[in-house]
């Protein structure tokens, strides 16, 4: 479900009370690119949740620093960052490809020029393209 921009302060910082990270670490080749909802539901996707204020703020800051530019590039989602408020409503949603270059931010397709976010995600939640 897309984020409700009205519930945010522009970047979700004020409202976000929980961060859920979805990560499909295993190397797979899908017939069509994975959408955000498909990523969340995939059998190999791992889910991490945190209510730590510092972690939430850090994630939001990394997104802000990623230089999002509107794009029509294809998104094959391997990461999902869902920020929810205290009631559980989604206030900011980001899906990201495994290279950290293409994303869907609150329903809008964008490209990221910065690498801070993907490097941070890998360091915190694990590597991509793992063979099992």
């Amino acid at each position, binding site marked *: 479900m897309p984020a409700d921009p009205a519930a945010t302060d522009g970047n979700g910082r004020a409202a976000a009370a929980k961060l859920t990270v979805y990560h499909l670490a295993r190397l797979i*080749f899908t017939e069509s690119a994975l959408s955000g909802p498909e990523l969340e539901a995939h059998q190999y996707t791992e889910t991490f949740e945190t209510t730590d204020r510092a972690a939430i703020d850090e994630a939001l800051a990394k997104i802000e620093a990623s230089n999002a530019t509107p794009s029509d590039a294809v998104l094959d989602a391997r990461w999902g960052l869902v920020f929810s408020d205290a009631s559980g409503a989604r206030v900011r949603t980001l899906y990201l490809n495994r290279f950290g270059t293409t994303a869907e931010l609150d329903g809008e397709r964008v490209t990221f020029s910065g690498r801070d976010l993907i490097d941070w995600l890998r360091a915190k939640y694990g590597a991509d*393209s793992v063979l099992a």
Partner: protein
Amino acid sequence: MHDPTPAATATPATPAAPPAPAAAPPAPKLHDPTVAELNKAIAADKAGVVDGSEVKPAASKTMAELLPEKPTAKNGFVELGNLKVEEGKYKEFRDSMMYESKNSEMGGIVERLEKGPHKTTVTMNNDSNNEMVPNKNGDAEVHWDPKHMHIASNDAKRSPATRLAHELDHADEWTHNPQRMLANANVDDPKYGNLEEKRVITGTERRNVKALGEGVREDHDYGKGNFEVNGVTSTTPVLHQTRGGVTTELPNNYNQTGKLALSADGKNVEQQIGRGQTVSYDRNEFEGMVGKQAFDKAIGDGKPMTVSVAGGEFKMAEPRTQSQEVSHAR
């Protein structure tokens, strides 16, 4: 994997030894390498990043010979050399490959999977899960949904059979050219996601759909989504309506006008069609075909809309006015 050189542990080029009693080594990890690293890897092992222009060799046998009509099964799987197919859906698998054999490359792929150095196991599902999962021992898992076709962002329609063929090409690459596959998979591509997907989509898949008269997609995007069909070779979605608790298939000449609203659980689109009657459509089917923007507008406006079905797709338009009706009648 920061260093994707031939010595990388991810490659299954050498068959795995029998499992040792000691703890298994950690799974190899592949990161997108720098261009310099990638070029080094390619130069070193002559793997080469290929595009779809590489035509795969045909088989030495016909598809019917490669895939017997009534093979024996063991433990729930038909085993044809190193190709294992779930027994209960073997007919769908065989029908698909017979259909796809209009492109002679597909016979070659099936033959190589049967004779290949590693196992390829094909299992079926009903939730639009079409993927190839490489294992570090060199084996490949193919997950296939024989009940859903796909409509790409350029409206290109591909049958379940063609989607299976796509995954079998990945499996062929993994079991025979793993180094090249990893090299390709580690290169970002704005249209195809990575170069391995580009290799397949612009290669065997494109030649398959041209031979079969299916749609040619121009990217790897999720597109309009996955839609149920009757039969593995079909590209015509089966659309549904629910009226009075009864769900039926929609005919191609369907046409209904009324306000649209979301159901309470958000899973269906409900249309008020007069006299207190409501018909509901599957939201995924409907929204995928009319487009998110038009869908959101129609729900938000709350104005009557005409919903029709043509060519197996939902269409939505503002109702024709009386003057338009008269003009049309003339």
